[in-house]
């Protein structure tokens, strides 16, 4: 009983998470690897493939899509990310990416800023942005 409950939970849980796609300004690269996206969001790389200065944009804390993105791309929970950034900030090594409250705001910012990279729900994609990574 317990086992089948756990099994069904484990099947349901991933489905319940929202999907995301990583987008850039239309002038961005055609495609990116997961590690290239990760390196931008942990401040280890500052440039998009192709050399454009990157402007990574995160969703604000508490957004389920943010958790899904980081679980998949950086492999860190929100608490681990916070600990990571406090280490970077207090050692002068960098600041976390700026964050916006909604995917609508992220899409608008990415569409209007060369070098910007963000993530939104797949259904929101249109010609104003370019999809560079799909998990």
């Amino acid at each position, binding site marked *: 009983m317990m086992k089948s409950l756990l099994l069904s939970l484990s099947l349901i849980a991933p489905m319940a998470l929202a999907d995301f796609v990583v987008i850039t300004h239309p002038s961005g690269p055609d495609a990116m690897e997961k590690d290239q996206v990760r390196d931008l969001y942990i401040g280890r790389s500052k440039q998009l493939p192709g050399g454009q200065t990157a402007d990574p944009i995160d969703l604000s804390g*508490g957004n389920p899509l943010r958790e899904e993105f980081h679980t998949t791309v950086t*492999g860190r929970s929100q608490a681990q990310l916070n600990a*990571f950034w*406090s280490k970077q900030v*207090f*050692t*002068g090594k960098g*600041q976390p990416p*700026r964050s916006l409250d909604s995917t609508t705001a992220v899409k608008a910012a990415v569409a209007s800023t060369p070098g910007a990279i963000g993530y939104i729900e797949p259904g929101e994609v249109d010609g104003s942005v370019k999809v560079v990574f799909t998990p």
Partner: protein
Amino acid sequence: MAQRIHLATATMASLGCLLLCSQAANAQSDAERLQQLEQQVANLQSQVSSTQASEDRLRFNGFLSLAYGVASNDGGYAGYTEEGTFNNESLFGLQGAFTLTDNTEVTMQLVGRGREDWDPGIEWAYISHQFTPAFTMRAGKMRLPLFMYSDSLEVGYAQPWIRPPVEVYGAVPVTSYTGVDGLYDISLDNSTLSLQGFVGESDETISLAGGQVARLAVNDLVGGSATWTDFIWTLRANLAQAEITTGGDKLDTTFMGVGFSYNDGTWQVISELTSLEIDGPTADTESGYITLARTFGAFSPYATFSMTESTDDDERPLTRLGAFAALTTPGSPYYGDVSVLSGSEIANLERKAYSLGVRWDVMSNVAVKFDVTRTSDFGNTGGGLDGNFAPTIAYDDADVYSIKIDSAF
């Protein structure tokens, strides 16, 4: 000002568009109109936030730790005795970073510690300049980068433990220096190699075992470190040399350390091995620790084993009793001179410690930690405990129980 005007123009343009768009949209469905409005608001939002970002020349961050600990005896291990205290490991930090140009920044960090009556002191004060995306130089007062967690030594929120293992991190009483460093990042295929070189000096009052204080001057400090990381694995090696002076003698000192860490988001392993060699009878030590931690949601239990030992005991033939006799006998050449103790077998050191603890991420940017540490296996030595800085050894182990709230903001 130019930015404000720009923002105002942009806002008016967008508002104008909002009006026009809504007029033109009479024939459109409500849903479409709503979508357009949402897009307009989003555009405005992103304009506002990017303007804020460029005006964001001064940034403040802080951290706060509140700790309570109590030990099974008065040996003083990790600063705790039978009488519990909040002051020993509670502290706050306030950091301000001012951007001068795109590539130049001034950073200051004030730290106030409970054990120093919360008097804030400057822990960092430096100017940094990024010459190329890969090369940065800094000048001023900075952390002495001897250990993997040196830079974030007091930022408990950034650490898995309640405190960095005392056996390793307690071996060097100096934690900052004044000087210049250079940081060079080499991007490899999917990983980064960071090289750091530094020169400088320091001169501060340090606490010694037995409640003594001494002036410790560090001159001709030169060192470097190499850190390789692919975000999951981190490997680090470093070396530093200096001439240190306590009292009269100038002593050549060499510090070496190697460390690695692994963090896949679930499992975390951290280990460091360090060696400190000081000329003359002042104790040379070798120390190390290994920590294993696993994350279960908000809980990350950890276990640590650490050890330290002195390696030049044959350079200190003077016995414990002999040293105290020389210190306290009027007419002795060492009468009243506590430095005779650090050249005697009192400075011999052997100690192991076992910690079990848990980090609980209660809410965003706040972690509560519980820890039990047992130290023992002092051999024939006093284990470096303050309470054993006496003619006879009174303590041959200690248990420390502590709880700590760490936050960063």
